[in-house]
């Protein structure tokens, strides 16, 4: 398996895929984080937000 990857990557020509891949991964990740934040329960956020002031 490793030798297959090695052989493929050693001779790989088109590296433009890297920036594109990275951007895509980030956009997907960022949208997921936004979704996560949007889905948070308001009361719970309020509770967590005040944790530093408790002790």
């Amino acid at each position, binding site marked *: 398996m490793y030798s297959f*990857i*090695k052989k493929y*990557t*050693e*001779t*790989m*020509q088109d*590296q*433009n895929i*890297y*920036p594109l*891949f*990275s*951007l895509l*991964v*980030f956009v997907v*990740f*960022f949208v997921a*984080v*936004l979704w*996560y*934040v949007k*889905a*948070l*329960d308001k009361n*719970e*956020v309020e*509770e*967590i*937000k*005040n*944790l*530093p*002031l*408790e*002790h």
Partner: protein
Amino acid sequence: MQVESFQYDNKTVRNFAIATIIWGVVGMTVGLWVALQLVYPTVLNLQPYFNFGRIRPLHTNAVIFAFVGNAMFMGIYYSLQRLLKARMFSDALSAIHFWGWQLIIVAAAITLPLGFSTAKEYAELEWPIDIAITIVWVIFGFNMFATIIKRRERHLYVAVWFYIATFVTVAVLHLVNSLELPVTLFKSYSWYAGVQDALVQWWYGHNAVAFFLTTPFLGLMYYFMPKAANRPVFSYKLSIIHFWALIFLYIWAGPHHLLYTALPNWAQSLGIVFSFMLIFPSWGGMINGLLTLRGAWDKVREDVILKFMVVAVTAYGMSTFEGPMLSLKSINAVAHFSDWIIAHVHIGGLGWNGMLTFGILYWLIPRIYKTELYSKKLANIHFWLATLGILFYAIPMYWAGFQQVAMWKQFTPSGQLKYQFLETVTYMAPFYAMRALGGTLYLTGAIIGMVNYFKTIGQGTLQANEDAQAPALEKTYTQHTGEHWHRWIERRPTPFLLLSLIVILIGGLVELVPTFLVKSNIPTISSVKPYTALELQGRDIYTREGCYTCHSQMIRPFRSETERYGEYSKAGEFVYDHPFQWGSKRTGPDLAREGSGNLKKSNSWHYNHFEEPNSISTGSVMPSYSFLIDDNLDTASTPLKINAMRTLGVPYAADYASKANQDLMIQAKAISDDLQKDGIKVSPNKEIIALIAYMQRLGTDINK
């Protein structure tokens, strides 16, 4: 639900606080010393132990790992216990962590002036200390994690997320960048060479800024700013976006330290894109910090702690605006290698880390000592001295940077470079003096702060174990109806750690793996051959003396550089460089082609220049290296070094180790004989001969 009584451990917090104060003053004093060495080079460079090249790493290591490191641990040990409503898991582990870290600092303070250095910036400590760092770091992480597991608070506040990300990422960075092959007890070679070493080093270097100087301090900001202002953070949701976006993006940013170098273009582009995007989460965090003070700005006028914190967060905003800008190719082309970068990092170091640390100390010490601050007036004086110090430091350095670059790049109408490099050095003298004044102001403030902290400690009594009460955590958690999947991850620290790890590994792997595997990334040059035994020994003297702190070995493809230094540097030229020595600052000229073309000098020039740089280059700020004339070269290490290089893949013949010293002496004798022709009598077995041999080799291979 049963309410449990327990106690917070303030003793460890106190220990880290005191270490922060003391190491802070020490690190800044060394900083002022190196700053003054550039103003009074002949008086303040005390060779060999206290030459600029050896104690500049001492300054950077002291302020990063001793001052900021201890401050980080102080804040984490205080806030983590309270956010989790639990005492640290083990007092013994806390103590081992504290004393282990201090021992590492002492070891660094001894070994760096002795010249034991890997010559990789901010990772200069040699392999035994690297192992000690790993052990102590794991102890810290284990103690933190075990505390998280036995917590009495179900939710993990965002500050704890930042601490977890700090732990896991620093562990990965340290392990990957410190892969080195030991040669002797205090000498190792980086496992990577040339371009690959450069990429790993700056992947580490930039993320040391990100995950040692930034993420833990953001955690501290999210805890201590609400505490000091007595109101919750402006937007908790924004802090979540801040966290995930920041840790995802930061890990890609390293290659912006290598723009226009021999690093493959695609890696440079990745670095630029992600560095630029970093401005969004960074500013989100800054705005979140500043808006926490909404409706409390009147307090900032009265409360010195908030003043420190406001300047800190503002400095964070400034440096995280400047960082992405400096990552743009056109700006980087101008700013890189100049004093501009020194200004930039000190806005971060003095402003963000320094001011936040002082603010937290002023808040925390009276609380754990159950007393009032000794003097608010002194704290205000400290604040103003520190703020003015930052300005007096940064403004001359920005100005110096612009001026320096303008002079480096200026051509006459007839198309020749207008200034000799030395002219740009002597022009810097007043700026360096002003910078030292800024440093003096900041240090004076820190000393006044130290007096104030210790006076406060003197008038109070440490509450080593502070009583607290909290309900026990339910063993089984009943899910709310309609609960989202995110609640699952938020409650579980281990999957959270793994998720953070995956997030930071994505960027690291995409950048590093192809650079190691894709052959076309580093085109080989057949005329590039391994160093001779003497040159290799000379190179080790170069790394030992920290020459990379002032000299680059990387000619970028600009006319202003190729005219001055010769043909631009190619990736294939560095394949035997363990470690790479591209440098990051040109206080002196680039040395990539010091041995070739117009730059080539005679052996006697180098000899005289090392002995007394000022006698050859009037106005030079380089220290004297006359001790190299007296010190014998350690030839016993030659076979070990050759064998180590062979292990790393450098193609020396199998039996070369046994013949290397013979070879070495022949080359050394030739240089010694040549020097004698110019009336210089020096034995071939002196260190200076090896260093001259290395200088004469630099950049010559591609002309063969």
